[in-house]
């Protein structure tokens, strides 16, 4: 039996980064991936002259050399930045509101963002300044967050009073409390549909971290696709002596006395005291660990959590350049939160995300994403109608895009591909094909996850990262989760 210091299951962003980080720190790491390439959904595919990105193709919290975001700093530790080519987007986002036909476009940088909001909603400036101030307080506190729930809360409170006070609150009550005008609240809270959870459920802490990093560092569009990042990290891991096995779907995680001892793939066993799972806990506890060795509280936790958004994606290769600069577009039916809230479980396809990118040869790529929650997709899909339903839903999404942007798309479609939750289920094995891990909600928001992770580890040596990890889902978040898990393992080993 081959022996390793750590085995990583799944070469998604989290798995790749934890493997790279452990290997770089002198550990002997085996990375097992069920597919034939690295990246998980940070991958791409080709159709004709187009290479489509399955992930978002935009890096947030990245910035650049002179103004590095956290992801840039993380990549710098592994000398990755010199090999990552990006194009800075001038604007952070473009919000299209269907019922009022309003458009809100926000540039990057806090000051510019605040100025723009003041233009759209006069009188919002002071509260926006307060908002970003709170964001900074949150960032400062979280960067020093204790490993466990703080033992001396008095001291913790004295150091980070705003953080402690804000922690229990959702987004909108905080924005109301700081007297941000209603319209500005609506604009600011409508854009983030692609977080894969509802604004009513997301904690202010999580929101503050994300919005702050988007606005401060802007978005960097990858020159090619996220698959370049995946192949880069896999390459660096191999160069450090790491080992990757593709086409290797783990059958069993071996445990003994509530400790990880290795994994089994087919007839082969590999031993290691640490297993990092860049896959869903439901799959790990539901089928990978011998039934009698699965801790009942781990089952309880898995059973209580709710799956995040299921994505429906339409990839369009157009034989025309688009008039839009590369940027993320979000379409919402209305700014009225009550209406949005009422529809929250059936938002498809009223809420859309669109990413525009110019290709070579004056062609362009438009990727549209819509979201299903709970069992909304499962209820309408059947084996018999699958292919017809795909086309029907894609057509609705394109119609919505055309009606809101007043930009005709259909006559210029040269290539089209459609990915459904079924496509993602096939590729990732994630429950119901979710690409968003667990829904960020109440007890399962960022802080409760971070502060309970050690206590909830009932099998010693078993760690989770990726979209089901403690940093929640997201392009950058999954890299951080991989890096953090590696840090925890390295600290434990010392």
């Amino acid at each position, binding site marked *: 039996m081959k022996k390793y210091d750590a085995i990583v299951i799944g070469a998604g962003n989290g798995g790749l980064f934890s493997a790279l980080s452990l290997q770089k720190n002198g550990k002997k790491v085996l990375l097992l991936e069920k597919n034939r390439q690295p990246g998980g959904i940070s991958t791409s595919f080709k159709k004709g002259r187009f*290479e489509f990105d399955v992930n978002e193709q935009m890096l947030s919290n990245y910035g650049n050399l002179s103004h590095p975001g956290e992801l840039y700093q993380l990549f710098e530790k592994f000398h990755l930045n010199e090999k990552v080519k990006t194009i800075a987007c001038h604007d952070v986002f473009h919000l299209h509101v269907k019922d009022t036909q309003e458009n809100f476009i926000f540039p990057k940088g806090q000051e510019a963002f605040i100025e723009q909001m003041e233009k759209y909603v006069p009188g919002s400036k002071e509260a926006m300044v307060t908002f970003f101030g709170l964001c900074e307080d949150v960032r400062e506190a979280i960067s020093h967050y204790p490993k466990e729930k703080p033992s001396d809360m008095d001291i913790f409170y004295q150091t980070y009073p705003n953080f402690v006070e804000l922690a229990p609150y959702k987004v909108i009550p905080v924005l109301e409390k700081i007297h941000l005008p209603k319209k500005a609240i609506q604009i600011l809270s409508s854009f983030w549909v692609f977080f894969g959870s509802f604004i009513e459920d997301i904690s202010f802490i999580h929101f503050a971290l994300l919005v702050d990093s988007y606005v401060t560092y802007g978005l960097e569009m990858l020159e090619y696709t996220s698959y370049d990042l995946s192949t880069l990290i896999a390459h660096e891991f191999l160069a450090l002596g790491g080992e990757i096995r593709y086409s290797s779907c783990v059958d069993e995680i071996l445990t003994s006395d509530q400790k990880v001892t290795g994994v089994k793939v087919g007839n082969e066993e590999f031993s290691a005291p640490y297993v990092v799972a860049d896959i869903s806990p439901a799959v790990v506890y*539901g089928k990978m660990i011998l039934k009698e060795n699965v801790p009942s509280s781990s089952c309880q*936790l898995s059973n209580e959590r709710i799956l995040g958004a299921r994505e429906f994606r339409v990839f369009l290769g157009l034989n025309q350049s688009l008039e839009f600069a590369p940027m993320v577009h979000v379409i919402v039916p209305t700014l009225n939160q009550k209406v949005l809230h009422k529809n929250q479980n059936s938002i498809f396809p009223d809420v859309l995300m669109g990413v525009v990118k110019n290709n070579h040869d004056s062609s362009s790529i438009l990727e549209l994403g819509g979201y299903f929650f709970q069992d909304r997709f499962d209820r309408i899909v059947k084996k*018999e109608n699958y292919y017809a339903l795909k086309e029907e839903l894609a057509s609705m999404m394109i119609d919505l895009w055309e009606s809101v942007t007043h930009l005709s798309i259909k006559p210029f479609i040269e290539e089209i591909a459609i990915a459904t939750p079924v496509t993602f289920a096939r590729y990732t094995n994630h429950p119901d094909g979710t690409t968003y891990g667990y829904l960020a909600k109440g007890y399962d928001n960022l802080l409760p996850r971070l502060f309970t992770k050690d206590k909830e580890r009932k099998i010693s040596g078993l760690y989770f990262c990726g979209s089901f990890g403690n940093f929640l889902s997201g392009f950058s978040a999954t890299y951080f989760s991989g890096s953090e898990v590696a840090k925890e393992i390295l600290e434990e080993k010392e």
Partner: protein
Amino acid sequence: MKDIKMNEKKKKSIAQFVDLFDARDEIIKHSSKNLPTYQYPANLLAQELHPDSFSVQLVKIVNETNDIKSFWFTRESKENFPPFLPGSYITLQVEIDGRIYKRAYSISSSSNSLKEYRITVKKAGIVSRYLFSSAKEGNIFLMEGPFGDFHYQSLRDRKEVIFLVGGSFLAGCYPMILDCLENHKIQSLSLIYGTKTVNDILWKKELDDLQKKYKNFHVTYVLSEEKRDDYAFGFISEELILKESYQGKSFFISGPQKMYEHLNPILKSLDVPNELVHHEIFATKPEDLASVKHNLTVHYRDETYTIPCYENETLFTSMEKNRVLLKVCCTVGVCGFCKSKLLSGEVKTDMSGLRHGDITYHFIHPCVTYPLSDIVLEIF
């Protein structure tokens, strides 16, 4: 007084903060202790639509023409086959003299009937010869699929369509034509179908019946080796395409390599935009290759094989002959199943199916790669 207020506020905040975590414990405590569900409807549907591989039984062999036979299969499990988009292909695994061969064949039966899949094969290579001479009704094979990217897509394609098809390549187009006529509200569909002689035409009666049933469907038969009244003579020509008032229509082309070489310049001279032309995928074999021998070293996990390879044979063919199991699917450099890493050596290869990240780190598709020196390859 102010201090007391502050203290109360602090106490309350701390209590709320701590409650965030205690609440999580409390909620989880009351949850079910059953093993978690990991198979949801989307997972189950994914397995039904794309089973890993499955056993099929050959139930019927039909002689279609002099050198074309159809093979009908049912699933050994008696389940229906997965629904498929017309134009899709499957791979069939065949063992001949202890060697395992996998080949891609278009599904030629209608996408409406999933009890059986039909493939329609022209006698050509080692596998088709085996199917012609040795395969018997009742035989069991392993099948994978359906796969493919050659489909009529209503969001992309025009309502007026022209198919240019050669010989046995009607196999994959036939279900597409049926689907266009039955399901896609096509305004007009023209099939220009080239064969050598009238006896080489596949499903003549079915095509003629379809023409009677659908007024918007029209077939032009073109014979290259037989002159007959009511049939065009020669190859599919500019003149025949002009007759179809082709402008603004979608083209679907499926035929042997020579047919593409003949048609591409014609379509270019007629100013048919690229985006209106869809090809059945095919591999181009470079012509100027000689039978020069090199060594191919293949690394697979902890194993290493060294086998001969030739400049006029793909690396995949060399591995297949020498029983090095490479996972393949389309065999024409598109699907990515066989993607391997070129560790050293010089090759001639088709990179059109590779992504930017693959090219950066020297990944290739052995099914469309010819060696120009000794080669060291890692397969996965």
